[in-house]
């Protein structure tokens, strides 16, 4: 991991010096992880792709501003999270609530071809994952960030703290609160479904 991290910094240094290929390498290395993070934050594949593109564009424009004080991964994560939050704010202003739309079940298609399932179990699975998706996206942004970074990106507490520039204790506190709220929301949803 140390070797990979120092390689990222070296590659960024080359990109800052004008090597166009070098930034391409950064994109290749991090594209899928940034996509996974964006998908977790936004819930829609199309939006996640756009956010991923915008993340790397923003990173390219701000290359000179990267001083190597943080890891490249933390830097990219911070940009990605900000891009996702900006997108969500814009969508809210436009009155779009993509993640609450009924048709979203189809658009949360898997990045890879899903395994074949029977119709009944596929419907059940979709219902369950749809509920989780709604619950996660109903969380306040600061809680959603940490949950997505932990569960989708599988970052450590320390990595999340570095990426978001918050104390370690705050990361744990937010994760605890997020899990608590998710449990309550999922329980409420389950009660509503059972009551139908």
């Amino acid at each position, binding site marked *: 991991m140390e070797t990979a991290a120092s390689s990222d910094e070296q590659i960024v240094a080359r990109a800052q010096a004008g090597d166009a290929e070098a930034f391409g390498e950064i994109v290749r290395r991090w594209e899928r992880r940034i996509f996974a993070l964006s998908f977790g934050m936004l819930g829609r594949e199309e939006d996640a792709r756009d956010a991923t593109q915008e993340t790397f564009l923003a990173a390219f424009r701000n290359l000179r501003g990267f001083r190597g004080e943080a890891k490249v991964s933390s830097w990219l994560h911070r940009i990605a999270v900000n891009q996702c939050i900006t997108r969500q704010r814009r969508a809210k202003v436009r009155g779009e609530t993509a993640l609450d739309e009924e048709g979203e079940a189809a658009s949360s298609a898997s990045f890879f071809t899903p395994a074949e399932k029977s119709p009944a179990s596929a419907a059940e699975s979709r219902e369950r994952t749809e509920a989780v998706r709604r619950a996660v996206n109903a969380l306040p942004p600061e809680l959603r960030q940490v949950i997505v970074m932990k569960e989708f*990106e599988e970052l450590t507490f320390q990595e999340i703290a570095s990426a978001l520039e918050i104390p370690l204790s705050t990361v744990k506190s937010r994760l605890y609160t997020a899990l608590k709220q998710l449990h309550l929301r999922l329980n409420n949803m389950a009660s509503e*479904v059972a009551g139908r």
Partner: protein
Amino acid sequence: MNEKLSREQQPAEASSSTGQCARAAELVSYLYHEASPAEAQEFEAHMERCASCRLETIEFVQVRRSIGDWRTEALGGVTSSALDAAAAHSFVPINGPIKESAARQRSALAAIREFFMLSPGWMRAATAFAGLAFCVLALVAFTHLSESTPHMPAVASEKSPAEKIYSKQEVDQMLARVKLDNEASRQPQALDQKQVKTMVATVDAPTQHGPARQPPRRIAAAPSPSLANYSPVRHGSSNMSPRERQQLAEVLLPQESRDEEKLPRLSDLLDNDSN
């Protein structure tokens, strides 16, 4: 935000709170396997005495499993480390390797076909005879080998799931996990600290995503709880016959690909060629 939540909470039953213990940070560290061994041991000891922390740990494990299922479905089960490994070398288009191997197959078939078209009759006959003789010898050797090998105890093999025979220990482990999950959903307060520890340890099991970050195996038609059954009473499994155990094991274990690539046999090619 808190006001909003309390309005939503009103119709639901009140759940226990760890606020009494003020061990939220320790619980989270333990849940995500980021506690040191000493801290983990200390928290486990605490859970033996504290029902509210035990209950909350169970609730959070269930939430994590739900998120893991969502993640698996959304991202096709690709873990971050698997993504990193792929990206670290070079980004290969998803269709690239598939197209490459298909092209290789076609060129191999085309080469074999060309060989038979260009060869004289006697060479084709000789090749066919040699192939046939090889097949017969292989069959005889296999028959002889299987007759002389003593009967082996039932062990997990590389056969398809329908043909696999699992050991009693493996089936018991799988059943224990299913039973524990059922119990956690039905009566979480009744679980003791050891059972909670098992749940936490298996939350990142290979079926979803794990601390070792192995690519998760897919579960074929696993009896997963529906949304309506997120926390209501469910009937757990009672005494099961060995046959029922085996059937349950087949359902629970990952489904391996049954479709093997069928390379064309020499006799098929010869038949095509003679036609």
